[in-house]
């Protein structure tokens, strides 16, 4: 008897696939359904969070036309041109079993949206964008945003701030607008047609362009450029499916760096608005980009708990700073080859830009640190309850400004040596010549 082997009796359960009977209707030739205009927004809104670049449930993505049409892990086609019955995607939208119908654990899509998708498939599932690899959010037409409210019913956190060093005018991000104030808090100008929230404002070093990153949380991100004089939208570099937290001009104003939600950084030519290069390396949303004054290096921070420095010409990563235990919010180049980063973990860390090693904790607390900026002789760290100013040469703390638990949410990218200004979660802006003479105003129309 052979006791050293035994039979594994595997019972295969054959599953008969239900064939759904869907009445094929005549396509409505009168109303041609556009992928970019009609279908992409539905997929973007309803599906991409589970079937996209961050998460691909069941191995299936549909964040571009090409991936939408590719074969699924199961071997089926999600979309078959002209055939709704064979299009698994469509069948799953109308499935009777709650466990199988998409979107998972939610009500089925509104009939009108299902109808649009059906018609699009029946009309041949045609693509009407530029490249089938474009992500859906970039397909959707550059939008006209709703007007800002005349006056705000509640305070909006100041999530972006900039200062014009010549005029001393202060720019803040409002609700669907940019707002320009004088230093005593008088409202000078409102620039509309902007995304819901503005996350960064950068003034071009030589011309009149205002570079902004913005978005609607969970839905949309944009990088929009406005003409300062006319307030007109003059450029829209990118659309993404999540807010864009930062976009910065290079010191010479020739290039733009964009911190993208998918963990990459795009570099654009500021004249042509064309993308030059994409920097890869972060594994989660990029929270900030900071140009070195030499214009050759770019510092980046990310929710992946790391910060990096890239060579912007070659796209090579020069150093990676790993040590924070939570989202890294901002980075600044200090003197002497040093870099400082601040994080939600409550720490400010100083690193060697040369070898990526950590030199010391500049600050260690329990509450998040959100911003860091520098002038010629000083650097500042802002967090959940105070703004600290240090001497660059000595690293000695020279001033501490408490904010009573009001988070410091924005400092200007290009600090003005004669003027201290920052924005707060409460919606206030503080401004002064020095830490000892601070005024404040509510940056809310």
């Amino acid at each position, binding site marked *: 008897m052979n006791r050293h082997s035994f039979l594994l009796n595997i019972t295969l359960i054959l599953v008969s696939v239900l064939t759904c009977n869907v009445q094929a209707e005549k396509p409505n030739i009168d109303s041609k359904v556009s992928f970019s205009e009609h279908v992409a927004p539905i997929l973007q809104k309803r599906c991409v969070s*589970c079937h996209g670049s961050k998460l691909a449930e*069941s191995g299936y993505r549909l964040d571009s036309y090409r991936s939408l049409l590719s074969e699924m892990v199961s071997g089926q086609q999600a979309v078959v041109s002209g055939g709704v019955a064979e299009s698994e995607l469509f069948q799953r939208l109308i499935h009777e079993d709650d466990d199988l119908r998409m979107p998972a654990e939610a009500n089925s899509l509104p009939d009108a949206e299902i109808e649009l998708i059906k018609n699009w498939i029946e009309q041949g599932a045609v693509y009407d964008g530029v490249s089938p690899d474009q992500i859906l959010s970039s397909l959707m037409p550059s939008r006209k945003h709703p007007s800002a409210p005349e006056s705000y019913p509640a305070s909006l956190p100041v999530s972006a701030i900039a200062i014009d060093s010549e005029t001393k005018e202060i720019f803040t991000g409002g609700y669907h607008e940019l707002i320009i104030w004088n230093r005593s808090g008088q409202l000078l100008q409102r620039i509309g047609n902007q995304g819901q929230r503005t996350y960064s404002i950068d003034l071009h070093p030589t011309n009149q362009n205002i570079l902004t990153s913005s978005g609607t949380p969970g839905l949309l991100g944009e990088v929009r450029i406005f003409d300062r004089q006319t307030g007109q939208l003059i450029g829209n570099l990118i659309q993404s499916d999540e807010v864009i937290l930062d976009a910065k001009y290079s010191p010479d104003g020739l290039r733009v760096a964009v911190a993208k939600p998918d963990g990459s950084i795009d570099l654009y030519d500021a004249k042509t608005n064309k993308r030059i290069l994409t920097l890869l390396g972060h594994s989660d949303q990029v929270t900030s980009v900071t140009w070195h004054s030499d214009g050759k290096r770019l510092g980046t921070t990310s*929710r992946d708990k790391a910060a990096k420095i890239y060579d912007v010409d070659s796209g090579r990563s020069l150093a990676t700073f790993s040590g924070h235990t939570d989202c890294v919010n901002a980075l600044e180049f200090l003197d002497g080859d040093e870099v400082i980063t601040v994080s939600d973990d409550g720490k400010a860390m100083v690193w060697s830009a040369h070898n990526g090693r950590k030199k010391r904790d500049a600050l260690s607390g329990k509450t998040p640190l959100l911003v860091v900026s520098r002038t010629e002789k000083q650097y500042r760290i802002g967090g959940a309850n105070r703004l600290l100013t240090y001497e660059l040469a000595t690293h000695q703390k020279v001033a501490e400004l408490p904010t009573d638990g009001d988070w410091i949410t924005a400092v200007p990218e290009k600090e003005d040596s004669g003027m201290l200004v920052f924005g707060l979660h409460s919606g206030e802006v503080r401004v002064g010549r020095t830490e000892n003479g601070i005024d404040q105003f509510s940056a809310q129309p």
Partner: protein
Amino acid sequence: MRNHLIFKRVIHAGLAIAVSVASLLSPSRVDAAEPADTIQIAQLKVYPPVFTITGAREQLQMVVTGVLSDQSLVDLTGKATYAVEPADLASVNDQGLLKPMRDGEGSLRVTHGDVNTIVTFEAENILQRQRVSFDYHTLPVLAQTGCSGGSCHGAPHGKAGFRLSLFGSDRELDRVSLTHQMAGRRINPIEPTKSLLLMKPTGEVAHQGGQRFERDESQYELLRDWIAEGANTDSGGPQCVGIKIYPETGRLLKFPNHTQQLSVIASFDDGSQRDVTHLSKYEVSNPLVAEVNRSGLVQGLDRGESAVIVRFANFIEAPLLTFVRDIEGFTWDEPEEANYIDHHVYAKLRQLQFKPSSLANESTFVRRVFLDTIGLLPTEEELEQYLSDPSPTRREELIDQLLERPEYAKFWAQKWGDLLRVSTKLIGVPSVHKFNRWLEVSVASNQPYDQFAEQILLATGSTRQHPQGNFYRSAADTNDATETAAQVFLGTRIQCAKCHNHPFERWTQGNYYGLSAFFSRLQRSKTNQKDEVLLWSKEDGEVVHPATGQTAKPWVPVAGEIPTQESDRRLAFADWLTAEQNPLFAKIEVNRIWAQLMGQGIVEPFDDFRDSNPPANPELLEALAKDFVASGYDRRHIIRTVLLSHTYQASSDTNPWNEQDRSYFSHYRPRMMTAEQLVDALGYVTNKPEAFFGVPVSTKATWVPAPDLKPHDRAKIGSVEFLKVFGQPERQSACECERSKDVSLGQALELLNGETVNEMITAKTNLVHQGLEAGVDSLDLVKRLYRRALSRDATEEELKVHEDYIQSHQDKAQALEDTCWALLNRNEFLFQH
């Protein structure tokens, strides 16, 4: 998508088969009782009888109970009709939810059939604006709708970058996450309904967590208004001091009247009360027995018991509901009760309509009781002696003999070694032997359990002189000592509370540090002797609560903060622990003994006591604990009492009226022998006992003092170890769960062609080969193998099969080896049954 689909189909198909088989085997369920619509109600009771509703956002859930002529109760909340007087004062829906429309006093007439009753209520401040409370609206809504649950944003690192504290236990963390983090993205102060916090859970923005509520539900309204009011997170105002659930624990529901609406009323420190039924979070402890919806409506699914765990703010209650059902053809035959254990077990079985199995036959009993008391199979001689004993009380006599045997002490000392983590890695080889010896003497001398616990917990001085002090070497710091003491002596897995409030229990982080304050002053000083530590107490030193920064005062469950001696705080803990009034101490140990003998605790897992994990039979647990205390914490007495019960002695064969029972001890639950029992059993059957390193040659696996006595051998790393494969714990944790009860492929392979079994079967010095050499007849050897392995004689049929097989082979030795191997792979051998 498609593979997803196929997977689900397979599961569904599997379930369908399981269900249909079950329905073939079990008597059909007939709901013989009448539904509530037709039963005769003697009286209606409405809860709460009087109530004042204060505030525009408040409402009141009524619970209507019908009292039948036999005094049994049915929930009629969803079946009664409601009429408010005056009619414009409030509205009431079909499920008894009352919403005031203006201020005033009024009455509610509740009618069912031709019975009715009237309750009064008052409504005030209904038309004034009532701000949404962060603590008592916002956070409860997030808990109730699952947002802050452990598998979603309440996970230690949150989900998709959004982290909430588990069920809202850390308001500061939640405040920051909701209002500040990521540039305040979750809240839109300008257009509140466009807040991510509302658009995600309603599905307007794609949400991995699915749709959690609709826009017309009160949960949506509360979150929306909270944002619109400025996302206020002030903690001012009256503080909640507790919740009260109606009905109280123990309500009996009989199919087909198996629904129960709950009412949850929160009390505040200003004396006010609020109905929070629709803001509480509900879970059931036994999802096979009951389910509960978000409004606190419980629905029975099957007979049995389940606690409903009700959570509001940081308060938890867990009322128990019992569901019974008339089973067709069920009769109660008044089985004989051997002692109080049977009395309580049978009462529960009768109530739930399970019929106990008859007693196991003699050979099954002998095998079972040997394995449970001394860990070994009965020898051929012991079996013969018992079976030929004509005494009518031979079961009782056997139990008494076994409990006096030295193997009993060794076997049970090993169980304690597991819990107290006796291992060379933690305390070194000499201490392993000393501590094990101490445990063995404790069991052999039947040391009262309270003294046993005190001697361990209060160990002072040299661990060489007081080997039980090694407890504090395995539990090498304050936290470890706290957690181990809580787990072993309080049956509580308190570790969770170290970092956050316990997810299923009323244990808070404060309690954890309060408990650890008893152990914080204990010092462990090394001496120049290897393996020796001096235990002594400092007179100062405090534990600081990491979240509040405050000094933790010594605290124990039920009694709360208790005074301590400055000299050694452990004294106060041990005094409290072993006091007769302590409801936990005795229950934990009797339940542990029960679980070791029955294979399943009355509370299961047996070291996880909590309100949300109720005992299968509270009366039985109570009675055992009472007997234990009355006997002077006599562990042997409890073991003996259990072994004498007909519940223990019942057959593992089921009948049509108890095969569905998994919890109430209607039949014996077969279980695989432990790793150590199995090795000893294999050794005995083949007469090739395994030898172990570092102990005398004849030492059984069930006596080995530690799992890691053998030297560290790099060459052996990765080689399969039989004991480990069968679940022997490494003793790195005080949790009983460390002993794996899982059945694995590795085990099957070990038994089929593993080295250990193969060597035993093929050894020339084993029973078979020695027997053949001595000229013993092959079939006689087979008969002996049966008696050794299964404690019974082989049947004629079995003998025939073996005879045919052996006859057909030239090589008798090979054929007998095969026979032995087949026998050792039978479930009847591997299992204790």
